C-alpha cells in the first residue's frame, strides 16, 4: 500500500474530514465563479464534467452495480431538460428564476423519474436483453415525441433559458447525487442491487424482493439523469431533440465503462477523462463523434470492467462500511477463528478497496 493511499485513508477516517472537503470544494467553485479565476470556457468544461459525472454515476447504478443493460439514458436527460426549461422560461417570472432554479431542477428530475417508472414497470417483468431494447426504444420515442410537439419548438428546439447553471450549483448537485447514490448502495436496497447482479435467482430465493429493488434503482437512476438534463439545458441555453439522441446515450455508456462499472470513483474518473479528452480532440472535427462508439467497442473487448472496475476509493465508502474489519474484530473478540488468516488490509464490503 502506498504512502499516499495510507494518508488518504487516515484522513477520511476522521469524522470531520468529509464536511471539510465538501465545504472546500463548494467554496472553491464559488470563488472561481465569483472572481473569474478560470475563463468562461474553462468553467463551462468543468460544468460539463460535473453534469457528466451525475449522468455516469446514475447509469452506473443500473448497468454497473445491478448488472442490467440500459442504453437510452439520454431520454431521461431530455425529459429533465425540457421540463425544467419549460418551468424556468414559461412559469417563473424572469427575476425570480435564479432563486427558483433548484425547484425547476427537482420537478424535471421527478418527471424523469416518473418516465423511468413507466419504463421499468413492464420491462423488468421479463429478463435479460429486454431492458436494452425497451430503453433504446424509449430514447427514440422521446426524441420523436419532442420533434412532433410544436408547442415546445419541435425539431427546431427550445430556447430562452437564462444561464442559471453555475459552477457552484453544479458542484452542489454533483455532491448531492453522489451522496444519495452512496447511501443507497451501502444500505439494504443497495445490497439487493448487488445480489441481483451476482445471481438474480439466488437473490430472490434469499428473500430479496427483486422487483422492488429494480424499481427503486431504476427510478433513482432516471431521476438523476433528469437532474443532469436540467443542469445541461441551463448551461447551453438551447436544446433540441438532437441533443438527446442515441449518440448522447452512447457517450454516457462509454463514460460508465471507461471509468469502471460498480464504482462511484470510476464514474467520476470516466466522466472527467472522457469530457476533457473530447475537448482536446476538437481539432478532429466531425471525426470526434466516431470516438465514442469505437472506444466502447475497444473497452468491451480489452477491459470490460473499466479503469476502476468494481473497486472503490475509500473516500466513497461510508465510514461504517470502511472499517468492517475492525468492527468484526470487536464482534469476534475472545471467540475462536480470529484474527483472520490474511494480514489486516483495507477492505470494503464489495471486495478490496
Amino acid at each position: 500500500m502506498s504512502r499516499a493511499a495510507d494518508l488518504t485513508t487516515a484522513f477520511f477516517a476522521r469524522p470531520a474530514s468529509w464536511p471539510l472537503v465538501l465545504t472546500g470544494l463548494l467554496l472553491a467553485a464559488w470563488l472561481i465563479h465569483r472572481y473569474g479565476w478560470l475563463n468562461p470556457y474553462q468553467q463551462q468544461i468543468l460544468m460539463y464534467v460535473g453534469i457528466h459525472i451525475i449522468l455516469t454515476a446514475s447509469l452506473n447504478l443500473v448497468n454497473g452495480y445491478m448488472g442490467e443493460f440500459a442504453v437510452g439514458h439520454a431520454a431521461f436527460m431530455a425529459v429533465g431538460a425540457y421540463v425544467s426549461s419549460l418551468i424556468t422560461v414559461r412559469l417563473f417570472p424572469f427575476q425570480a428564476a435564479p432563486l427558483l432554479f433548484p425547484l425547476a431542477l427537482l420537478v424535471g428530475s421527478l418527471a424523469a423519474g416518473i418516465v423511468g417508472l413507466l419504463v421499468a414497470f413492464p420491462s423488468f417483468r421479463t429478463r435479460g436483453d429486454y431492458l436494452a431494447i425497451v430503453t433504446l426504444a424509449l430514447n427514440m420515442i422521446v426524441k420523436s415525441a419532442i420533434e412532433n410537439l410544436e408547442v415546445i419548438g419541435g425539431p427546431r428546439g427550445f430556447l430562452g433559458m437564462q444561464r442559471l447553471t453555475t459552477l457552484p450549483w453544479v458542484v452542489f448537485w454533483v455532491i448531492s447525487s453522489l451522496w444519495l447514490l452512496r447511501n443507497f448502495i451501502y444500505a439494504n436496497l443497495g445490497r439487493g442491487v448487488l445480489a441481483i447482479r451476482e445471481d438474480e435467482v439466488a437473490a430472490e430465493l434469499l428473500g430479496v424482493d427483486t422487483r422492488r429493488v429494480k424499481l427503486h434503482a431504476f427510478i433513482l437512476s432516471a431521476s438523476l439523469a433528469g437532474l443532469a438534463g436540467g443542469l445541461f439545458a441551463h448551461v447551453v441555453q438551447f436544446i433540441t431533440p438532437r441533443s438527446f439522441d442515441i449518440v448522447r446515450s452512447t457517450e454516457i455508456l462509454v463514460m460508465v465503462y471507461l471509468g469502471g462499472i460498480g464504482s462511484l470513483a470510476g464514474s467520476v474518473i470516466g466522466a472527467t477523462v472522457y469530457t476533457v479528452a473530447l475537448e482536446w480532440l476538437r481539432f478532429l472535427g466531425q471525426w470526434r463523434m466516431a470516438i465514442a462508439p469505437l472506444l466502447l467497442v475497444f473497452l468491451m473487448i480489452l477491459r470490460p470492467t473499466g479503469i476502476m472496475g468494481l473497486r472503490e476509493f475509500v473516500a466513497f465508502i461510508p465510514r461504517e462500511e470502511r472499517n468492517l474489519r475492525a468492527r468484526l474484530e470487536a464482534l469476534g473478540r475472545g471467540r475462536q477463528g480470529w484474527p483472520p488468516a490474511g494480514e489486516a488490509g483495507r477492505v470494503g464490503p464489495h471486495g478490496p478497496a
Partner: protein
Amino acid sequence: MALLELQGVSRRFGGLQAVADLTLQVPEGELTALIGPNGAGKTTVFNLITGVYRPTGGRILFDGQDLVGLPPAAIVQRGIARTFQSIRLFKGLTALENVRIAHFARVTYGPGAWLSRGRPFREEEEAILAASYQWLERFGLARYALEPAGSLPYGDQRRLEIARAMATRPRLLLLDEPAAGMNPAEVEALMELIRWLQASFQVTIFLIEHQMRMVMGLCQVVHVLDFGRLIASGTPDEVRRHPRVLEAYLGQGAGGS
C-alpha cells in the same frame, strides 16, 4: 404434524411430465430425504416448492397454507430456505456480504433512515452485521468474512451457502445435493453439521441426495422419485430393499431377483 405437504403436485414442460401427481409430507422437526436417479425430477420439486416454477396442478401446503402462486421472495419470508445443486453464491461479494443479503426481508428501516444514515439505521445495520458474523462463526467461516465468496475452498463454499440460507431463519431448509463433489471425510463433516443444525435450530430439513451413505445415516424417512413419480416411501432400510427402487437404480430385472 406435517410442516410441508404436497398434494397431487404436477408440473409439465411441454411434452415432458417432470413431476406427476406427487403427494408427500415432510414432518416438522425431522430429516426427510428425496432420492432418485438422474433426471427423476428432484430439483424440479424444490423449484416448485420455492416458487421458481409454478405447478401445473396440485397444492403445496406449508404450515397449512397454500404456497402456489406466491413469488419466491414471499415464500422465503414464510420460512423456507434452500441451497442449490450447483453452488449459487454471490461469488464476487465477500462471504459476509453473502450472509448480510439474506437479511434483506427483515430490514424495517425506510428511505428516511438510509438517506440520513442516522441512529436507527446504524443500530439495525449493526444488528445485521453481528447476526451475519455469528452465522459465519457458527459455520467456521469467520476467517473468510472479508474474502470474496468465490475464492473459498469448495467445501467451505457449500457451507457458506447453508449459512446464508440459515440466515433467513427458515423453519424448513431445503438442501439440494449438499454432498455433491465432496470426499468421504467432507461428507462425514457435512452429516455432522446437518445433525447439529437440526438439533440447535429446530429446523426441519428436506434434502435431495445422490449418495446413499449420507441418506442412510441421516434420514428418518426417504421418498424415491423416478420419472417424476413417487415410487416408494419409508425408512432408509425399507426403501433400499424396495423392488421398484432397485429397478429404478439398477435397471429392469434387477428388482425381481
